[in-house]
């Protein structure tokens, strides 16, 4: 598959790297030659220097036979024009663009074939905001991922002493909670993945991934750790795009304080936010944070655009007594550094964006993909097509399906119904199958499983 990426910024660069590693043909377009040269040396990609919206530049980049355009330049307008150009002049089948300004996004029906032909809109800030919001709604969760429009969620939690299930075999889960159906998809013990069996014993400090219907999530989490009281007071460090969106999204439900270093930006924030308290202080200023009762805060979200500030302020906040810190970290090297330390949750914006794009480059019919554990693992929601003759999955019980190693089926969504995967459940056509892949290299095998055989046509 030939993919054209416009914009070699953080998102574009990471995307190019991720996709190039997956054997896609990537052409990267940017008007900064230095950045392009750097990336060309590092990655196996083609680069074209020029403005991403100009037809001649796009032609040089091979827009004529590209299968997909991903426009992620810093300008909404350039992204939109590039999609229009590709639609009108090159007939590119799939056009994905990053649109940040809510002014464009609020207008329904604008992004349609007749008006502004963009097939998929991505908004990294939105993705990160949603991520953090879900984490705040489930105190104690390390990761919350939506499938089937949020009806099913995959949640990662750390097991603690005191959780009723800790030290027990997994099959006791059923007896503990007869009314709640859930499936443990994977367990990470000291960084190594284990495929859970009925007799696997959950130990303290295990990182447990389980799948359940949204309304059951909190009940299952209560089995693995003490029940946490819901978050009430949230402090957000950094009033950039993510900080504002996050504050706007959560201010009706939580009491929010936004900490921002720049006075001018504070004024803007005070104008856009309605209930949140905007504080003009340095996120690493211990005295000022104490003045604002940081020790009373339930969660601290460091979302400035500076990794170092995020990490240091998070460490400080944790030390001052915040229950949970969530830290935005761009540099992959830093993610490894802080993982497992004082910082409870590290979120990578690039990974979030890549996740949201991966579902469009998969060969099978995939509704959602979430990249996990820094891209090593993956959770996939694939749609089963065909019948017992043409498909390797349809018409079979889950216990009879030969899954690639390290792959578990967590749940099925059939219409509105959520079915937790047990060995005797039979997959029907059009079921959404949610799978957990401990090893991402098995993606191709899984894709093949869900592709319909030739006899279908």
């Amino acid at each position, binding site marked *: 598959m030939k993919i054209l990426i416009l914009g070699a910024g953080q998102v574009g660069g990471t995307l190019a790297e991720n996709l190039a590693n997956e054997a896609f043909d990537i052409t990267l377009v940017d008007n900064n030659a230095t950045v392009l040269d750097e990336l060309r040396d590092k990655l196996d990609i083609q680069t074209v220097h020029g403005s991403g919206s100009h037809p001649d530049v796009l032609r040089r980049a091979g827009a004529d036979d590209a299968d997909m355009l991903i426009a992620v330049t810093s300008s909404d307008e350039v992204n939109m024009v590039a999609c229009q150009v590709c639609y009108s002049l090159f007939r590119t089948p799939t056009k994905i663009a990053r649109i940040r300004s809510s002014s464009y996004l609020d207008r329904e029906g604008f992004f349609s074939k007749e008006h502004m032909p963009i097939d998929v809109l991505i908004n990294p800030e939105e993705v990160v905001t949603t991520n953090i919001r879900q984490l705040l709604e489930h105190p104690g969760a390390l990761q919350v991922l939506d499938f089937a429009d949020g009806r099913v969620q995959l949640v990662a939690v750390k097991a603690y002493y005191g959780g009723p299930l800790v030290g027990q075999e997994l099959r006791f889960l059923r007896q503990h909670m007869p009314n709640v159906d859930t499936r443990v998809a994977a367990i990470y013990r000291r960084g190594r993945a284990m495929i859970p069996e009925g007799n696997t014993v959950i130990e303290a400090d295990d990182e447990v991934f389980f799948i359940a219907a949204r309304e059951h999530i909190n009940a299952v989490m209560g089995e693995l750790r003490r029940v946490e009281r819901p978050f009430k007071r949230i402090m957000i460090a950094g009033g950039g795009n993510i900080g504002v969106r996050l504050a706007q999204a959560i201010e009706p439900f939580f009491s929010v304080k936004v900490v921002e270093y720049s006075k001018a930006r504070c004024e803007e924030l*005070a*104008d856009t936010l309605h209930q949140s308290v905007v*504080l003009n202080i340095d996120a690493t200023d211990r005295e*000022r944070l104490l003045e604002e009762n940081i020790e009373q805060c339930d969660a601290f979200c460091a979302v400035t655009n500076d990794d170092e500030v995020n990490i240091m302020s998070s460490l400080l906040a944790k030390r001052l007594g915040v229950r949970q810190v969530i830290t935005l970290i761009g540099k992959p090297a830093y993610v490894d550094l802080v993982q497992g330390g004082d910082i409870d949750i590290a979120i990578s914006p690039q990974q979030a964006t890549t996740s949201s794009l991966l579902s469009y480059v998969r060969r099978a019919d995939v509704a959602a993909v979430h990249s996990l554990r820094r891209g090593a693992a993956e959770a996939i929601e694939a749609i089963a097509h065909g019948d017992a003759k043409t498909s390797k999955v349809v018409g079979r019980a889950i216990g009879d399906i030969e899954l690639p190693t390290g792959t578990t089926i967590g749940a099925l969504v059939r219409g509105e119904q959520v079915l937790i995967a047990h060995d005797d459940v039979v997959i029907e056509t059009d079921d959404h199958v949610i799978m957990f892949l401990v090893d991402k290299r098995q993606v191709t095998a899984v894709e093949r499983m869900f592709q319909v055989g030739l006899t279908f046509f």
Partner: protein
Amino acid sequence: MHLPVILRVTGILLTLFSLVLLVPVLVALIYDEDTIQTFALAFAITLVSGLMLSLFQRGNRELRSGDGFLITALFYIGLGLFGAIPIYLAESIDANFTDAAFESLSGLTTTGATVLTGLDQLPKSILFYRQSLQWLGGMGIIVLAVAVLPMLGIGGMQLYRAESPGPVKDSKLTPRITETAKALWYLYLGLTVACAMGYWVAGMDLFDAICHSFSTVAIGGFSTHDASIGFFANPAIEGVAIVFMIFAGINFGLHFIVWHRRDPRLYWNDREVRLYLSMLAVVTLVVCWVLVSNPGSTQSPIRDGIFQAISVATTTGFTTSNFSLWPSVAPILLIFAAFSGGCAGSTAGGIKIIRVLLIGLQGMREIKRLIHPNGVFSIKLGAQRVPDRVIEAVWGFFSVYVLVFFTMVSLLMLISPLDFTTAFSAVAACLNNLGPGLGDVAVNYASLPAACKWLLILAMMLGRLEIFTLLVLLTPAFWRR
């Protein structure tokens, strides 16, 4: 400062105003009254003076921001004096010039304080003239001039700003100022017609209906009867008055937008209107409660309480019962309510609800700042930020308003042997363009000495032109620049 231009514009406005004096002539003809000569003479004097000013002054320079203040102030003073002529000349009224000027300016500034008694016996043309003065003053005669005189187009914004009430004066409703002025006057006219119909259906005769609609939508308070609205003793009429007083106290810019978008929900979305309506509701409830718990002060406590609360709190000044005789908390509360008045951009007087709201929000902000020393808070109306500049201006306005008020009360007591209640309420009623006060001025201002009347005339003008337009003329810096 370019005096010829300013005088020329003032002359043009005066010429325009002289046409207003022709309408009572028509009324006099209809009712066959002997006031035709009076009005014809007043018309001639005004017209000639206006033409003299406008024709003999040379200069075609554009108006500048300072000029607007001077023209507006000069025009209100001039109009007040020329408008007094028919009252002074009328044989049926035994008024000296002070009384005539008081009556005329009380009309133009929509105050509604009167020095005349025996209104019921006066010729209808005179009564009609008084009402039409209020009607012109309500939306602002300068706004009318901007609407109909194309030559004021360019400098019109300066004039419009000097006359229109409220803290934010640059808001045009349409790209062109003349169109904005026209839109406002059409709305005003529409509301007046609706009000007149309402009164007529409710049982007034046509003359009274038209006259009272003038003073209702202008939030003036003049009546054609000594007993004001109480004369009719008709709940339906009081209901119509209440509805239109409330309506006229809402920003006409908002009326325009609601009309334009055909969406009445916008009223409730506006924070100023919400506060305005809630304040009216609270004042009404308290007054009714006071009246009910003190039986004997009035015969129908609920009906009078509601009417009087709305009438005084919107600064209209219609009366159905002498509220100054009520248990003292009620009249004092009503006078205080009149201080906040109606919404900005309405025909009501007072400090304006929006300023009260902003002062309140600013107070809240100070409290929040004490709790969060490093917090950054902005004051917002809806989703829109209010610039700190506006907040400062509101505070400035408020402090000067209070200062002017206390100075005037003291001056009034200094130059005449008035008791405190009378002095206090007279200044409050005039500065807030309310009308009736308490004590000696509860019904009528006739008993005051002449010096007091002139002082109160000043108070009325300060109130109508929102103090700064007039006050800026009294600073040496204005003349020296």
